């Protein structure tokens, strides 16, 4: 396993455009840490390409953006990661899936007999965006409120923290934002709290394996990841 991150960046609709745009902040953190990155953007976010780069580069961290369900996560047009097809490629890697519903079935399968870890959601990932800026994520003043806390998961991992620390870090940011919104009685405070609370319920599968396998974990830290 080598130090490095593979990130899928589909942009087939507004949702994937937003989450892929926000992934650029994660990429910057990885660049600052000199972590090699392989991006699968747009049409390159497909299973064939994904399988190829995962096998060839053998990077330790996989960051997947895309629409998901219990059994699969989509790339640009088709499933990128699917149970029973290519989920075994995730063995011994750290996977963060910013997609809906993938944790309990697909995530669980990915960490079976593995020293890796899967962080994902068991509910549909939610966020609001400002309709006046739809399709313009860099100028949208609202969407970042919801998506930025999820960025803290891969960013914390890139900085060499454990999956559990990444979980805590991200959740604390959500809670602080909910708190601030409620204290200031901001417009849409209820909707913000509700959507963020929904995203609060992400799952980490197999974090103890990373701790049990101390040499692997130590190696990742020594490699700055």
């Amino acid at each position, binding site marked *: 396993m080598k130090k490095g991150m593979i990130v899928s960046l589909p942009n087939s609709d507004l949702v994937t455009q937003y989450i892929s745009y926000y992934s650029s902040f994660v990429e910057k953190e990885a660049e600052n840490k000199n972590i090699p990155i392989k991006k699968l953007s747009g049409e390159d976010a497909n299973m064939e390409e994904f399988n190829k780069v995962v096998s060839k580069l053998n990077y330790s961290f996989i960051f997947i953006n895309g629409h998901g369900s219990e059994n699969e996560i989509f790339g640009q047009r088709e499933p990128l990661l699917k149970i029973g097809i290519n989920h075994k490629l995730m063995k011994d890697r750290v996977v963060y899936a910013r997609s809906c519903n993938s944790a309990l079935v697909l995530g669980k399968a990915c960490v079976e007999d593995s020293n890796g870890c899967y962080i994902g959601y068991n509910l549909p990932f939610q966020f609001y965006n400002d309709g006046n800026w739809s399709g313009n994520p860099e100028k949208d003043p609202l969407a970042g409120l919801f998506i930025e806390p999820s960025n803290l998961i891969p960013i914390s991992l890139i900085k060499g923290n454990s999956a559990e620390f990444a979980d805590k870090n991200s959740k604390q940011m959500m809670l602080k934002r909910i708190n601030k919104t409620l204290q200031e009685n901001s417009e849409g405070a209820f909707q913000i*709290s509700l*959507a963020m609370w929904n995203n609060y319920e992400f799952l980490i599968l197999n974090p103890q394996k990373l701790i049990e396998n101390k040499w692997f974990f130590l190696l990742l830290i020594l490699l700055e990841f």
Partner: protein
Amino acid sequence: MTEENKPINEDLMKLVIMRVEAAPSNWKLSIGSSGSLSKKEIIDHIKKGDEIGSQIVNSHLAFLKAVASGEFTKAISSV
């Protein structure tokens, strides 16, 4: 019958719709693969009781339960 297939309780539906209507009019909700939904589209899904409508109602229900149980307050007062 799964949670998602259950018909949505009418009182709960009214409550959720009332909450959805209170959102700022320019806000759009992205949930699942449904795209970006306006208030009217959210309400249509809820009234139809389709998968997206059920997901929205379920997330409201989960949030209200967390508020009622004190779980939400405990969490936000911890930071």
